[in-house]
């Protein structure tokens, strides 16, 4: 079970999520509610990625692919029957009559992503360094190509519409809190500890009896589960999407959140999401304001991502561990408290 300082971390991180959600709810501004819900969804995705990357030390490019698996699975299972005739006219008959509740779809979406991960990635887990990165990237391309062209189920490159609205701010925040708890529990579990030992020294960890590919595999499945749930939450929030919204730009944003916050800690993942979302939205509204002012001959695009890319390179060069490089927030407070009178 977790040590007390990890519970403290959980309470603090969960508290921040609750605080942000409640504050947004009290203000009640629709744009703010939207941003906050998206923030909670990003939290699920980034914390999910942290579980794999933070513990194994291996970069995975496939995360958004599993997000897509979750989003499409849940969409196909939940679109109302009469809607399906229009949105997915060629859907296989056994799926055509299915219309589940969004929450059920989300859970199944997560499970589907975890299942695909469990079946597909085990052999990949013995690779390290460049080979691991290229295979995860190749896996992402494979998943993307399937989503992009499997028209009967995904509506192909076109937008899939008619997904029931099922994601509310309390639900997204609740799932984000559960994700944080899962990541902290995983980090302190035997698998998490061995995996981090293997990240620092593969040979030493192997001599402790750790079967590294299997440990990485377990972490990847948990990570894909959260990616799938996060994807489904996203799908039921925006209610229509296309595979183009599940590609490199989204991968970049999620990776930037984790890298800037600090991939080795759950606190880093949470902080990264908060910092990047805040600056991203700030820049985007600036971009919007400039475009509305109509002072430029063409609309301004790309400034937000450009700034984020520069920030990411700067963080990697100057503070490679991110904002929270090695310790969870609970550690500092716990130490301070136990040192007190």
């Amino acid at each position, binding site marked *: 079970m977790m040590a007390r300082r990890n519970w403290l971390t959980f309470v603090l991180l969960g508290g921040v999520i609750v605080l942000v959600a409640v504050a947004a709810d009290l203000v009640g501004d629709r744009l703010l509610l939207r941003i906050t819900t998206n923030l909670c969804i990003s939290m699920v995705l980034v914390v999910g990625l942290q579980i794999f990357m933070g513990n194994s030390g291996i*970069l995975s490019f496939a995360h958004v692919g599993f997000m897509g698996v979750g989003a499409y699975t849940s969409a196909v299972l939940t679109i109302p029957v009469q809607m399906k005739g229009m949105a997915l006219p060629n859907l296989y008959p056994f799926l055509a009559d299915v219309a589940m509740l969004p929450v059920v779809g989300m859970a199944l979406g997560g499970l589907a992503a975890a299942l695909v991960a469990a079946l597909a990635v085990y052999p990949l887990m013995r690779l390290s360094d*460049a080979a691991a*990165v290229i295979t995860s990237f*190749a896996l992402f391309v494979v998943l993307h*190509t399937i989503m992009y062209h499997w028209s009967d189920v995904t509506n192909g490159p076109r937008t899939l519409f008619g997904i029931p609205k099922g994601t509310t701010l309390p639900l997204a925040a609740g799932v984000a809190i559960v994700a944080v708890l899962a990541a902290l529990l995983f980090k302190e579990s035997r698998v998490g500890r061995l995996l981090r030992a293997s990240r620092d020294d593969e040979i030493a960890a192997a001599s402790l009896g750790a079967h590294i590919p299997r440990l990485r595999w377990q972490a990847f499945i948990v990570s894909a589960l959260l990616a799938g749930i996060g994807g489904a939450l996203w799908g039921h929030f925006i209610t229509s999407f296309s595979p183009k919204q599940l590609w490199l*730009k989204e991968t970049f944003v999620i990776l930037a959140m984790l890298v800037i916050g600090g991939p080795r800690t759950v606190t880093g993942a949470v902080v990264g999401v908060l910092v990047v979302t805040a600056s991203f939205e700030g820049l985007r509204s600036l971009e919007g304001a400039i475009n509305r002012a109509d002072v430029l001959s063409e609309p301004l695009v*790309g400034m937000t991502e450009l700034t984020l*890319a*520069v920030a990411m*390179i700067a963080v990697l060069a100057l503070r490679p561990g991110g904002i929270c490089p090695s310790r969870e927030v609970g550690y500092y407070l716990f130490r301070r408290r136990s040192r007190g009178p």
Partner: protein
Amino acid sequence: MNPAQFVLDVLSLGGAYALMALGLVIVYGILRLVNFAYGELIMVSGYTMFLVSGSGLPWLAMAACGVIMAVAAGIATDYLAFRPVRAKSVTAVLITSFAFSTLLQNAALLFISPRPRAVPLPELFSRTVEFAGVITPVRNLITIAVAVIMLGIFSWLMRSTALGIAMRAAATNFRMARMMGIPANLIISAAFAISGLLAGAVAILWIGRIGTVVPGIGLQPLLIAFIATVIGGMRSLQGAVLGGFLLALIDTSLNYTLPQDLLKFRDAFTFSLVILILLWRPEGIVRGPASGQRT
């Protein structure tokens, strides 16, 4: 299917693919860096040609500008994205190259336009010619010729010049190469510059097929280079060239044989192949230069 047509298709596609793969592997072989920003060198070259298109320069001069800017962008990748994190983890270097790719793409979006921009091309590119009994676009023959010339120059550079030999030495054993007095920074910058040079050549050939440049133009060449490199063996220069032609052979054969509704899944097949090859041989099919033991 006309066999001469098939051979011509494979050779012209393969020539372009081989140059793409070579540009990626020259950096990977020496630095173990998968440069995600490689495709953006092609983009930079394309936009340079667009920007100088109103200048009234002869076309060859405009093309030269494109190539020069791709070389400059390659060297900039070294200074801005690679050097600051060189001493850190493999992962950090990969992420910066990915970030640098995003940076360049969004700079193009921000300062030029998200919409396609026309690139000047000589009239010759759009002509067709009858060759060996088949009617083929002249640009395919140009592609083959440029590929042969570039591969020739490259091979001479790597075999017969002090810099080329030093780069091959660095690819086998970077530390030992430095202990010969070969400056690490020189080798790294040279690798990025050559990568840019190849990207510049690819840009002209690749954009010659489409006629326009968009911010995302680099993605497909990058993916092609990935596959070709993996097929050919990650660290071997000859392997990269071989991989380029093999991939062109696979692609062209699939184009001729697969039905349309399966053909759209081609990327899924080729990338599954990439995964399988890497699982089978993480170092690729053609083994790279044998690595000296390191202590």
